[in-house]
């Protein structure tokens, strides 16, 4: 089975809900399992899309402005980026554009860009229209998603589509930092990553849910 290992970094202005999204996703993945989650800033999850296993290493970043200058350290060698903005605040949309520019300039390898408009539960206070965001995402060759961390809507889509994008990237084989295994033994790359016991213990539950995803999302691949 083919396995792709990729680093996904979550970026965006302060307070747009990056951490909430990640925590929500991780929480859901982990909630089925007894083992406690000790951290939500870094986690690995595996998604099975058709016959490919995608292993995502999701890096949340500290959003406080005082850590802004350290961002390049986080997105170095990233294969995918989730760039989040708050649909109720237009300036976060602008900030998102700045992030995209910075990434395009500083990350030399091709990467999967996903633009996420968060807080759809606050539809009444929306400042960024879906059309505008879609248009922008298309202009940078990325996908656009809307989500609500509070209502837990659209978050899984974001991660799944990122995985699909990574598979496409791997097919083009343009990306050298993307680690691709072609293995007869499907379990081996899992253990190869070693000491992620903290979050790693939850791999199995993740795997189970991810199979679900894969089935649900399969039609999308075709379109």
């Amino acid at each position: 089975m083919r396995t792709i290992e990729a680093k996904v970094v979550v970026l965006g202005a302060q307070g747009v809900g990056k951490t909430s999204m990640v925590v929500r996703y991780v929480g859901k993945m982990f909630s089925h399992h007894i083992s406690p989650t000790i951290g939500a800033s870094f986690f690995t999850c595996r998604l099975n899309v058709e016959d490919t296993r995608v292993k995502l290493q999701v890096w949340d970043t500290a959003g406080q402005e005082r850590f802004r200058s350290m961002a390049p350290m986080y997105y170095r060698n990233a294969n995918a980026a989730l760039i989040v903005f708050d649909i109720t605040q237009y300036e976060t949309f602008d900030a998102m554009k700045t992030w995209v520019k910075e990434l395009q300039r500083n990350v030399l390898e091709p990467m999967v860009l996903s633009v996420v408009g968060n807080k759809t539960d606050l539809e009444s206070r929306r400042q960024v229209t879906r059309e505008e965001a879609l248009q922008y995402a298309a202009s940078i060759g990325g996908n656009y998603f809307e989500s609500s961390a509070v209502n837990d809507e659209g978050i899984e889509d974001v991660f799944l589509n990122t995985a699909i994008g990574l598979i496409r990237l791997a097919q083009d084989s343009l990306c050298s930092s993307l680690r691709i295994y072609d293995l007869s033994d499907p379990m081996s790359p899992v253990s190869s990553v070693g000491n992620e016991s903290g979050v790693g213990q939850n791999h199995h539950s993740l795997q189970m849910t991810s199979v679900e995803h894969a089935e649900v999302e399969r039609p999308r691949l075709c379109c």
Partner: protein
Amino acid sequence: MYSKKNPSLRINEADLKCKNGCGYYGNEEWEGLCSKCHHEHLQRERLKKTGGHSGLHHGERDGDKHTKSAVGFSKFEEKKRQQAEKKTKLLKLSVFRKSSNSKDLIRSEQFQELYSATPELEKLKQDYQDLFSSVSQSVERDVLKSINSFNVNVLKNADIGTIDELSEVVQNLYQVFAKRMEASIIYTDLSQEKKEMLLDFVEKYVMTGLYRILFCPPSTTDEDKDLSLQNRIRQLNWVNAQHLDCSINETQSEVCDLVYTAIADIIGMDSAKAPQDKLSCIVRCCRNIFLLLQQSVGGPASADEFLPALIFIVLKANPARLKSNINYITRFCNASRLMSGEGGYYFTNLCCAVSFIENLTAESLNMPVEEFEQYMSGEVIPTSTWESALMMCEGMHLMYEQLATLDDLHNRYTRFGEGALALKEEMQKFKIDIADEVAAVLARTPLTIQPRKTPTDIDSENPTCESLPPPIVPQIVAPQIGLEPDSVKKTESAEDSQPNITAAALPHDYLSLSSPLVFSHSLDELTTPDDIFGAQALSFVQGLTSINYDIDLSDLSADNSYAEDVPAADGHKSSAMLSLEVKPAEELTPSLLDNTESPTGDLLPSPIKPLCTGEYQGFAAQGWQIHSIPCETGDTPSLNSDACGNVDSASSQFQT
């Protein structure tokens, strides 16, 4: 909790921009430049490298951190670095590379030195024993072979490359080994897991062995940076969890314990040798931080809580050689490990924490500048007892570390003292040995030889001593004339040949070479070529030698005094001339001599003649001989006058 943040305290956007002003974001790691500008900058630096060294840019902010004593030290550091660079440069010249043989020798010695007697390596082998017992012999052999070639490769580059080039070499070698495991049939049976373990083993083994030359090498500014960071952290020891907005519940003893464990973990990083082991120290530390945050927050902690907590731990721990360790891991940890996974994430966060600490201002703590200054200057100190306990904790760690250093220094001092004593003893022994040997040599060599030596020395020292032989010859001749006419004939002709002797100066070589005994020999040789006299002359001269012996010393001393009188230039000239004539004298080809010497020949006869004419006037029978000789010898008036003078003095001495 973030929304309450005062927007005015945010970092100015301009500060984050690339220093080149290209409009893109800069990065601390890239000296405030964006990736493109930094890349260009690096390339420019690389070109410049032949000139000044580029490693001297400790940022301005480092400058004021240096205390006075550190300034002196930094000078020393600078020098050390320059020397290291010089060495590298020298070695880069192909001339120095050529002697590959001797270098290989050194390398193998270095190899021996690095890999001998390291308990860590033994332990490492033990740790991986299970792994190796589960793989085939051929795999084990191949791994060891790979390690060997790895080492050779690194050591080969260690002298000539910069640390970054070396890092590239090492990273390349990791990849080569990984590919080898994929490609070679030896490894086909192994699971991916085991391959990864083998890769880890190779990395750990090689890096543990090479640690001494790869960690904080003198060619880098790592050590300077360590010191300034350590000072910086010490200045910031008043910063507490509240300042950093991190939620550490210090009232819970479990949380406190976890804080101490995390501090111990990060401090322990310095004593690990393999980059991966260092990395796992960081991982352990960070996991403990997550655990303690979970206790404090009551749920999984996010990046927003984790990073401040890590900064707090780093501030309180003040780990030794933090910068060196980070750079070492960055350079030599297998990049595929560092770029991804938990270790990579925590390591990145540690880098961020360090960068944050280095750039920490009142703003980043959401604190009025005045208050910040007060804390920094030590006017105000934190009141919390736990904080002070943590401050002490850092102090205690520091104390232990310094005690260890002191111990080490003491040991070294003792060893040095012993070494010095041993050396002293050896020297004394050597002195005695030499004295004994000298005494033995003296005993073996009789002193009686010495009187013989003295005349030789004097002879050889004077270029003009060639003028010595003639005085003897004529001197003896004169009395003989009075004795018997036959001998007068001979002597007269001997006198004729006398200028020949003086000028020809064949004794020149012989004299300097041999003792007075040979002197007479040379005289023999002198006379022998003069066929005319034949055996008679020979016997006469030989008879003369016996006389000669008695007068030798006084003669020589007289000669000596003359030599001193002769101007140096003349001396040189004469000697030059003399050497010229050595050949003619031996060959005795008058025609040749005549030709060469004729220009100056006119000057010569006069000095000789006054002495000789009176005596040999009547022996025209041999005139053909006489004629040719004066011409040939007449080249050097100074010499001739000398010779004549010598003859005079010698004769006068002889007569007296």
